[in-house]
């Protein structure tokens, strides 16, 4: 099983699903960002799995994975910065309260 691509991909899909659920269901903004990190990691796993099972592409896919990691870091920085800024204004980390653009 560890030698079959499918297992890793299914694992990636499951992780992605968990991340999606967390993103859609949690109230705390930081919890949402953690779920986003889970999703990014799932995608990264899939990329690395594809790269690992193909001789020519291994190096390139690994490079892509490095980029993804770096970008996730940058995104987490800015995202958390935004959450902190909003928190200063609204005094709550709960996204339910961030609804001033409702109709």
């Amino acid at each position, binding site marked *: *099983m*560890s*030698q079959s*691509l*499918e*297992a890793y*991909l*299914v*694992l990636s*899909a*499951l*992780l*992605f*699903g*968990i*991340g*999606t*659920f967390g993103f*859609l*269901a*949690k109230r*705390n*903004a*930081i*919890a949402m*960002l*953690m*779920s986003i990190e*889970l999703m990014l*990691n799932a995608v990264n*796993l899939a990329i*690395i799995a594809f*790269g*690992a*099972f193909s*001789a020519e592409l*291994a*190096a*390139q896919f*690994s*490079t892509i*994975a*490095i*980029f993804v*990691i770096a*970008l996730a*870091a*940058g995104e*987490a*920085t*800015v995202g*958390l*910065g*935004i*959450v*902190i800024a909003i*928190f200063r204004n609204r*005094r*709550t*980390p709960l996204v339910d309260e961030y609804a001033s653009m409702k109709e």
Partner: protein
Amino acid sequence: MELPATVPYLDWRWDDLLFLLLAGVLLGAALLVVLGRDIIRSALWLILSFAALAGIYGLLGSAFLAISQVLVYIGAIAVLILFAVMITQSKRGPAKLVFNRQWWVGALAAIGLVILLVLSILLTEWDPTATVQVADARDIALTLFDDYLFAFLALGVLLLAGVIGGLYLARRDDDMPMTNIPGGVPDEEEAV
């Protein structure tokens, strides 16, 4: 001491056992991240899931990426998340509800998405002869600095922008007074 060729009793390969263990830890930690009540606990389970993921990368032959994962995700991102959690803790204490009103629809959507993905994965015909290739760090380095140098440099700029943006967003306001305070900006002398 030599390990037996296959796992005793189950007759699996060791690789497979390792894979199942790591996968189990990963999924369990991820679930606990999402289902947990206390957000600090969720952050710690997240760290565990990162670690498990690093192990899986190692299983896939990328030692370099496994180490990068640990360094960046656990060392930087998870710490950042913990700091943010602490800054945004509201005095009202933990919220009564962890999930919002649409959580069950979200669960259904997530399950649907997973089913979709899994079905498409299982129904695809992958090359059955493929085996795990080890990704040499040297090859990664060559690809990164030779073919994708420009992208690498752009990534650097992006991260720089991200850092500056993050700093600006998260700064404390008394260092840089806001200019649209109702009542006007207080003069230098008035600020005590």
